[in-house]
């Protein structure tokens, strides 16, 4: 029993040290977002602001088009999510329920495609976007964010659909329910947790996307949050306290949403390797 107690103390110490290291930058973010400009540029810096500059949180909205950035991100992420769901539900249903030739290899290629690096295709995708007249438009980002989350979404939903017993569906079909009605009234409600996961995943992915925005968007009024914040970092001076304040507000909703799907993501990405 004594050995156990010693082990427990070691576990506590290690866990606390690791957490301190992992959470340190979040502490920096919080601390800086409450600092006045004089305190931001004080050397040596203070861990905790001597005077809390609460007005950063209101002033940053006036000084930068932050509201615009939030709205742009919200538009991009919402439409990408809607489009993704509309396209991925029937596709996932097909690969999980309908028997056709090449089904296995299609599933395999979804898993491979999901890993494609956006940077590899950005050169030619940029030309496609220009050709379609979508350059410097939010719709270009809606489209690419939909596509780059699609394979994983189909993959996740396929897992949920496959988990639903065939018999329930067959019974409904025999009772004279049409295929479409069966899907809407029986399959989708059961697979709701999976659908919610896909919705949150796509939303977060689009909300956080940076490289495509950097490439496709030129005008300030159309920047999503990530790109807008990136341009806070100026060539000569950076208002770090405002950047941290804005970052704080931008990151909170993402973190909250993420905690809702984190378990499903872990399972979906690591495969049958992890059983509950």
């Amino acid at each position: 029993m004594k050995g156990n107690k010693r082990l427990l103390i070691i576990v506590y110490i290690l866990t606390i040290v690791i957490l301190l290291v992992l959470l340190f930058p979040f502490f920096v973010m919080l601390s800086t977002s409450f600092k006045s400009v004089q305190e931001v540029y004080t050397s040596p810096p203070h861990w905790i602001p001597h005077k809390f500059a609460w007005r950063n949180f209101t002033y940053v909205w006036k000084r930068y088009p932050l509201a615009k950035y939030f709205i742009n991100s919200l538009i991009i992420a919402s439409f990408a999510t809607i489009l993704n769901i509309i396209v991925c539900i029937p596709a996932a249903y097909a690969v999980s329920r309908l028997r056709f030739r090449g089904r296995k290899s299609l599933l395999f290629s979804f898993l491979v495609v999901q890993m494609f690096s956006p940077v590899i295709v950005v050169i030619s995708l940029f030309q496609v976007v220009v050709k379609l007249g979508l350059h410097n438009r939010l719709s270009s980002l809606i489209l690419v964010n939909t596509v780059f989350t699609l394979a994983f979404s189909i993959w996740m939903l396929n897992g949920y659909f496959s988990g639903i017993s065939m018999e329930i569906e067959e019974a409904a079909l025999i009772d004279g329910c049409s295929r479409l009605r069966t899907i809407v009234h029986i399959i989708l409600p059961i697979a709701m947790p999976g659908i919610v996961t896909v919705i949150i995943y796509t939303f977060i992915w689009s909300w956080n996307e940076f490289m495509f925005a950097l490439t496709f968007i030129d005008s300030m009024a159309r920047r999503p949050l990530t790109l807008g914040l990136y341009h806070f970092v100026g060539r000569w001076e950076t208002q770090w306290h405002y950047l941290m304040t804005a970052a704080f507000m931008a990151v909170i909703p993402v973190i909250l949403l993420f905690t809702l799907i984190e378990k499903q993501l872990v399972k979906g990405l690591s495969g049958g390797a992890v059983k509950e």
Partner: protein
Amino acid sequence: MACLFLLPAIALLIAFMVYPIFAVFQISLFKTDKLGRIIRFIGVGNFEILFRRKVFWEVLLRSVIWTVLAVSVKTLMGLVIGLLLNVEFKGRKLARSLVILPWASSIPISAMLWQWTFNDEYGLLNYTLKATGIWSNPPHWLGYPLPAFFANLYVDIWIGIPFMALVILAGLQSISPDLYESAQIDGATMWQRFYYITLPLLKRVLLVVTLLSTLWTFNDFNVIYIMTKGGPANTTDILVTFIYKYAFTFLRFGPAAAIAVITFAILSVISVLYAFFYFKAEARG
């Protein structure tokens, strides 16, 4: 019917993922103008340009070192944290939800956050290292090649650790406690139990997640581009940031496409391996 259901998804994937890859292959074989338009066929000319430049080989080598170092540390730390969180103690749930934060946070924003934390004069990292006596003379992180490389590497690792830890924790929790109990009765030490029970049973999980982590690490554009833009003087570039710079900073789309083709080849091998072991694990599980 299957066709009809799959059509929109496959059409989108072909138009915006598969076709662009073919187009990149095509561009890599042509001389291009500053807008990336094709001028004339030059065969492997773009590849020859690259292979003659020392900086390409440096970037390629750095990408490999970057990936190997980051993935090993992530796996090791993931294992340590997974084992810690598998012990029953008060506050374990809280610890678990705090460990997730670096993964849950937005990567571009985290990179900006770290850029500020690494600031040599006003940043809190060097101040904290000095004040606590952990490191009395820390380097100027982002201004010099080697420190900048390690700063980027550190942030990439920081982001990647939570996923590793969570998957390994889930793997650990699926191991039946009976196995440990009977080993303990047989007099096995803690280390023996870890080596002969835990590790072999974790092998499949570890294989799948290290491959996945390799893909993510190799592809980590955001951290490097935001923190140092590959600088100073290309010394922190890896292949993905190099592609982007060649195309959108130097406007040399031909060589950029050639690097993209090489990167694609490397990534394809890893992702097919990942998919293969994923399916295998699922079929067996």
